[in-house]
């Protein structure tokens, strides 16, 4: 294809997206569109499956049978969401194994928030309330993104995710209506998860490299700073309702703007964790790599068995 032809195709392609048409896997697409989508969708998928670990950590210690079942179901949903997203990504011509390889080698990123440890039961509440809350803000606009398989996966994810945040908030509510010890546990969890949750919505707009292109392709409908403001505005009243204090002395409602002003975010910490030096980066990656490597003989056996069965069927038929 000549340079001119490609330019022409690109123009048609961009116009289709501008008209809100969906792009499907076999449609022609610019290489950069493909690569950007592989990067973002897989990063999203990786976040789901790494995200299983900090919560999975509390399944065996959940304080009631009802909580145990809810937590199991939630972590299972995360596996499901990872699976939907890997499948969407695979339609772009990359295999799940290659995607795992990118995760395990450190080439692919996942949401940094999962590199923080879950040290008390209240963390299950805080993660559901704050981390899933921030995730929903990020994800809802993606239900209308331009790439069909991604948009469809996100519709399913968002539909299922709606119980996650409620589950978390309910845990917090129960703690806050409980004993002094329980309230302190809840406040401590909020203190530890508040700032990482704000960081989860991504670097500030002036430091974000992908925003402009992503907006055009509807991979993003709002900037990181807009999303962060939305998250803060909706979360502060929820904290008030719990009787908890948000750990930010500068947090104040601004009558003029109609939004909450908030204090500076420690971006040094953010970049440190992104670069692999968070509290649990190593543990999380080891857990994923171990699961994959220790499962190799199982996956091989299943394939070998399937091949034997097929051979038997063929022999029978002939």
């Amino acid at each position, binding site marked *: 294809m000549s340079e001119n032809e490609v330019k022409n195709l690109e123009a048609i392609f961009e116009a289709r997206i501008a008209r809100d048409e969906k792009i499907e896997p076999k449609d022609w697409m610019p290489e950069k569109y493909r690569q950007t989508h592989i990067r973002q969708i897989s990063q999203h998928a990786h976040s789901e499956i790494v995200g299983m670990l900090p919560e999975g950590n509390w399944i065996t210690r959940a304080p009631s049978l009802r909580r145990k079942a809810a937590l199991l179901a939630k972590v299972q949903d995360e596996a499901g969401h990872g699976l939907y997203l890997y499948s969407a990504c695979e339609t772009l011509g990359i295999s799940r194994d290659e995607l795992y390889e990118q995760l395990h080698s450190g080439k692919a990123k996942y949401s940094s928030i999962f590199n923080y440890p879950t040290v008390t039961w209240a963390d299950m509440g805080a993660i559901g309330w704050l981390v899933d809350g921030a995730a929903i803000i990020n994800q809802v606009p993606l239900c209308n993104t331009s790439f069909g398989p991604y948009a469809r996966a996100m519709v399913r994810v968002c539909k299922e995710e709606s119980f996650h945040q409620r589950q978390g908030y309910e845990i917090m509510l129960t703690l806050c209506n409980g004993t002094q010890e329980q309230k302190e546990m809840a406040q401590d969890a909020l203190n530890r998860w508040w700032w990482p949750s704000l960081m989860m919505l991504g670097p500030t707009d002036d430091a974000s490299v992908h925003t402009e292109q992503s907006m055009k392709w509807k991979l993003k409908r709002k900037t990181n700073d807009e999303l962060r403001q939305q998250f803060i505005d909706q979360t502060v009243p929820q904290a008030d309702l719990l009787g908890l204090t948000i750990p930010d002395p500068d947090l104040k409602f601004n009558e003029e703007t109609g939004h909450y002003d908030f204090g500076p975010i420690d971006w040094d910490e953010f970049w440190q964790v992104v670069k692999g030096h968070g509290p649990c980066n190593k543990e999380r990656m080891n857990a994923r790599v171990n699961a994959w490597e220790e499962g190799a003989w199982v996956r*091989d056996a299943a394939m070998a068995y399937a091949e034997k069965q097929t051979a038997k069927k063929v022999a029978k038929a002939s």
Partner: protein
Amino acid sequence: MTKNWPLWEVFVRSKNGLEHRHFGSLHAADAEMAMENARDVYTRRNEGVSIWVVESKYITASNPQDNGELFEPAQDKIYRHPTFYDLPDDVKHM
């Protein structure tokens, strides 16, 4: 060895009376596993009463580049639609 589990497409009938609809895909070593995985992955919330699984490689898909010749010729065959035919308003039940 290390041969990866192939990809399967999952179709689910959400209730009797409706058609099977494409729900998504998954990996499985064989058809039984694909069926079990489909049940566990795609019907966790009571979404189905019947499942089809088919290995993705057996699906032949039309090529979007052929869309012109495949689908556009149907666009001007308006006589296939009832509105093509002019009848007086007095004619009922038609």
